[in-house]
């Protein structure tokens, strides 16, 4: 039953994502690929749309996946599911466990989770970049050149010019490059 799968899937996303929207991407990727809901291709579209529209990235992704699988009710269910763990955990923390966050065992676990999440995000992003370049089974010249070019722009601006490019500006730029490279 698709509604149940969406609900449980996004409940898990909401309950196990530490550190904001990007940390949700590996878990959502597993969820949609293993269920065959989205392809790598449509997954990337979905992430791009979620990053360039306002609102929490995780909520955007849940709504998108839900809607693509089961229309309005799917969107409602996935969005509710992704929010529920947050909502009740915060209430719990505020009502009964005010000191739990500062508890040293909780802090010890959190101290391990953060670096692990960073490693997972890095591997997921790196794998997506890599897969793109090899999407036909062998190195795709056009994609690889664009990847290198965009990487130079993104990391060059950050390292040399000390200027951060906003994700939206970067996505728009990549769209222009895509149009020039792949035709219109």
């Amino acid at each position: 039953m698709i509604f149940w799968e969406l609900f449980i899937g996004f409940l898990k996303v909401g309950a196990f994502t530490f550190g904001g929207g990007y940390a949700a991407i590996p878990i959502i990727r597993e969820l949609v690929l293993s269920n065959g809901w989205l392809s790598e291709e449509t997954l990337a579209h979905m992430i791009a749309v979620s990053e360039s529209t306002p609102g929490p990235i995780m909520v955007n992704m849940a709504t998108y996946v839900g809607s693509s699988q089961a229309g309005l009710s799917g969107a409602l269910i996935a969005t509710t599911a992704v929010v529920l763990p947050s909502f009740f955990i915060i209430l719990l923390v505020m009502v009964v466990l005010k000191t739990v966050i500062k508890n040293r065992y909780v802090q010890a676990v959190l101290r391990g989770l953060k670096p692990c999440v960073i490693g997972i995000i890095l591997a997921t992003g790196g794998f997506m970049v890599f897969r793109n370049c090899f999407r036909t089974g062998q190195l795709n010249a056009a994609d690889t050149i664009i990847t290198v070019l965009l990487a130079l722009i993104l990391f060059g601006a950050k390292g040399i010019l000390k200027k951060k490019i906003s994700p939206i500006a970067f996505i728009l730029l990549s769209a222009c490059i895509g149009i020039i490279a792949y035709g219109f």
Partner: protein
Amino acid sequence: MKRKTLTELFLTFLKVGMFTFGGGYAMISVITNACVEQKKWLTHDEMMDMTVIAESTPGPIAINCATYVGYRQAGFSGAVAATAGMVVPSFVIIYLISMVLENFMEITIIASAFQGIKIAVGLLIVNAAVTMLRKMKKTPLACVLSVCSCAAMLLINIFSWKISSVSLMLIAGVISLVACTPQKEGGAA
């Protein structure tokens, strides 16, 4: 009186949800502006406390903040009003886009644009991880955990192993619990 507070909570977070791009961390400054400077719902110190809680608990950071502020101002119904306000703009905008996007893909120019965008998405994720890595406190344990989890996740992806990233997180949590706790006890003694 209560209804006024609820409406105000809903509208304030509706605005935050509608006009903030870039996810949780970008939102914290907007929420500070709305809740501390304009509405005086929280002091700066309370805002700091809330940020720590929002970051240490799972889920979207902005939702954690909305629930927190809403509950503080008006109890359970306040939490519902603020959280709903935060979610509604996302929901409406994304729902509309998702209905039309895949049809638009048949237009060549949009398909080409998204071929470029697809490449950017991977790079943005790498970039987010690099930024987080730079800010991370580089204790030996943190370095080992981040390198190992990155390597493990790459292997999982490459060989399509059926291991969830959640299990990696659980393992890291347990390792850190075992490694950090005695050290702290020793320091306190």
